[in-house]
């Protein structure tokens, strides 16, 4: 029956495949619904819906990034919005350059905001951003390097638990302040907007929007599978081991900080990509994305869906954001109440989120005693480890 246990655990992890299948299916349906169906058909999916879904998927990707480090390695980052936004800005800069002389001033070199703040020439960090490949490289490099430097410093000097969380928050806060400055040359509070087209395709065309949406879905699927593979690998086991007993892991010979840095960077890259896909779909990027509130909201998506399960993160992101869209429409003032209550409720009564609940139900149905306690231990494990972190 232990064999059975193991089997069920494997099974529990390998639900990624069907999920990906469903994801792809929905994407296809939605895309066709928008492109092929006539406006008045019941199956017509409005462009509004497409962009909305696209946005949700970006958030899902972001949630995945947070979950990878928080759920599996116990590193609670309250600054992932920073990586998201940086990726977004890299993409935004590319899109700005694509506008070329179609800006309101018709200046071929400078974006509009530079013209009316009469900048004489393009700042160095805007150079090369007109090349798609270069911009994409930056989408990965900028968040990646930031994550590497920050992570390397922090993990090497064994900053853990809440300290790390607060530091990450300070990081994104500092970046927000910085990007609000107009001298920075990122458009200040207005950020970057009024994009025209991407690699030659008109951003306003439905086909482009659908394609972007599809690409997002595809990326999500790919990242999901890759992350799954990584976490299934022996390295993944080390990661979880670090979460549950960092010092033990050290004493059997693992340089835990390296694993953490590696994972932190990986997670930052995902966030960056999410940001890059987010910008052309919502059509604007501004310093607001850096605000600590956003970053902490991502965490709650993960918490709701169930940390430590990749699918849980995605589900959480989709549900919470869908709820947000609906909720704010019905009673705007209520939303913060709801969100706040969600935070409290989930942490108090649903520490493992919906996926945890689901697992429990499954295990109950199988009424395998070990199975019953098994997941609880898995799930309560990060808690204890983080507690250790907190006391240090």
């Amino acid at each position: 029956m232990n064999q059975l246990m193991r089997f069920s655990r494997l099974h529990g992890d390998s639900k990624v495949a069907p999920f990906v299948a469903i994801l792809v299916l929905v994407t296809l349906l939605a895309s066709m619904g928008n492109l092929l169906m006539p406006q008045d058909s019941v199956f017509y999916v409005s462009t509004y819906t497409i962009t909305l879904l696209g946005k949700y998927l970006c958030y899902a990707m972001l949630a995945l990034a947070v979950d990878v480090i928080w759920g599996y390695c116990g590193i609670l980052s309250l600054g992932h919005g920073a990586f998201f936004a940086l990726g977004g800005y890299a993409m935004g800069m590319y899109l700005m350059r694509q506008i070329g002389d179609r800006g309101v001033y018709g200046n071929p070199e400078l974006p509009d905001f530079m013209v009316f703040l009469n900048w004489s020439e393009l700042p160095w960090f805007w150079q090369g951003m007109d090349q798609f490949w270069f911009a994409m490289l930056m989408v990965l490099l900028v968040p990646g390097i930031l994550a590497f430097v920050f992570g390397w410093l922090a993990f090497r000097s064994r900053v853990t638990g809440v300290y790390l969380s607060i530091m990450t928050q300070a990081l994104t806060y500092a970046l927000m302040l910085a990007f609000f400055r107009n001298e920075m040359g990122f458009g200040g509070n207005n950020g970057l907007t009024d994009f025209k087209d991407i690699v030659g395709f008109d951003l306003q065309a439905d086909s482009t929007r659908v394609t972007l949406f599809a690409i997002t879905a595809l990326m999500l699927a790919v990242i999901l599978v890759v992350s799954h593979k990584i976490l299934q690998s022996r390295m993944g086991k080390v990661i979880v081991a670090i979460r549950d007993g960092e010092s033990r892991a050290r004493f059997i010979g693992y340089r835990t900080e390296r694993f953490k840095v590696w994972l932190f960077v990986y997670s930052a890259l995902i966030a960056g990509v999410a940001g890059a896909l987010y910008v052309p779909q919502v059509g604007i990027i501004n310093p607001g994305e850096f605000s600590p509130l956003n970053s902490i909201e991502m965490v709650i998506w993960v918490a709701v869906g169930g940390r430590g399960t990749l699918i849980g993160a995605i589900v959480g992101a989709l549900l919470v954001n869908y709820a947000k869209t609906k909720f704010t429409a019905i009673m705007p003032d209520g939303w913060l109440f709801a969100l706040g209550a969600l935070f409290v409720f989930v942490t108090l009564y649903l520490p493992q989120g919906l996926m945890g609940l689901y697992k429990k139900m499954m295990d109950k149905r199988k009424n395998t005693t070990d199975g019953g306690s098994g997941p609880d231990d898995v799930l309560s494990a990060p808690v204890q480890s983080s507690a250790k972190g907190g006391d240090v």
Partner: protein
Amino acid sequence: MKLKSIAAGVALSLGASVISISAMAAETIKVGVLHSLSGTMAISETTLKDTVLMMVEEQNKKGGLLGKQLEAVVVDPASNWPLFAEKTRELLTKEEVDVIFGCWTSVSRKSALPVLEELNGLMFYPVQYEGEESSKNVFYTGAAPNQQAIPAVDYLANDLEVERWVLAGTDYVYPRTTNKILEAYLKSKGVAAEDIMINYTPFGHSDWQSIVSDIKKFGGEGKKTAVVSTINGDANVPFYKELGNQGISSEDIPVVAFSVGEEELSGLDTKPLVGHLAAWNYFQSVENDANTAFIKKWKAYTSEERVTNDPMEATYIGFNMWANAVTKAGTTDVDAVEQAMIGQETPNLTGGVAVMNKNHHLSKPVLIGEIQDNGQFEVVWETEGVVAGDAWSDFLPGSKNLVSDWTAPTKCGNYNTESKECIAAK
């Protein structure tokens, strides 16, 4: 669990599409309201939402437009800039509104703009802003810099013999542009560079000690000095408090503000501020029948202690003009209304007539008011006649030879008078 979420996803997409169909059948004229009801901007924007609702209600009492009732569709962009784009799309495609009244901050407008132009919507923007924009799909009923900043500076220079200038602002696009314009303007008036001090602070800046003492020093060097403040919202309270405490009275160094209206003052003990100035196109204290009637209606619609302010007047004017334009055009079709709008005249609340110009900006009077200890403004100066709003400032190198003219044959928001071509058309 996943299945559920997928179901949700599908439901979402289908649900959305269903709604978008049902919307077509509606036999009303839909008025979209795109103002933040939550988040940081809710403070200012909820007022405008109420204003629009009030206007709609009133219009319906008069029997609506073209024999149809008006129906307000309110959405909440929650002070989240990307949401402004999303909600605009929602209003235009799902709700299929005929007109949108909305936005406060520049960034929210910039965010909504591409969607408006893509889907050829129509929006009225009721807040004073930095200019440097003119879209076919937007009517700007707030003040452009030349309808607020420049007259204010003239007043200070001529009536108060101010010779040194502190341009203090929050670090975002409106103050940046306004100050750029003012700087150029002042220099053109022969003010020396060392007599201009420019200072930017972050949003919600609360510790003004050093800056105020710098201003004090700057003002202590003989020449009469004034502060031109484009400081935004929250940061004003601590700023004025610090001024008061460091003993800078309005006689020593008057401060003229462009973002401080009745609403902002209501959150502030105005005793220390008496005598400081603000420049607007409207003050609640202006005495004439139209205004008193409007204030009465407003208080009745909301509550006694509520005040009126300039963006509300802008909304009022915008709404009436739109109503007239629709009646004139006999349809709510955007292109028709857009053309009908140009040249529209409606009485404003300060006893004059507001005219919509070819560049989608209004002609309005400019008033300068002194803050009173009751939280109101006392008008101390106003322009003879009205000032026409300028889409493109003549004092910025980038835009001095740009004009906007939406009438045939030009039909262009950024027409370059030098190269004789419409940049947008390129």
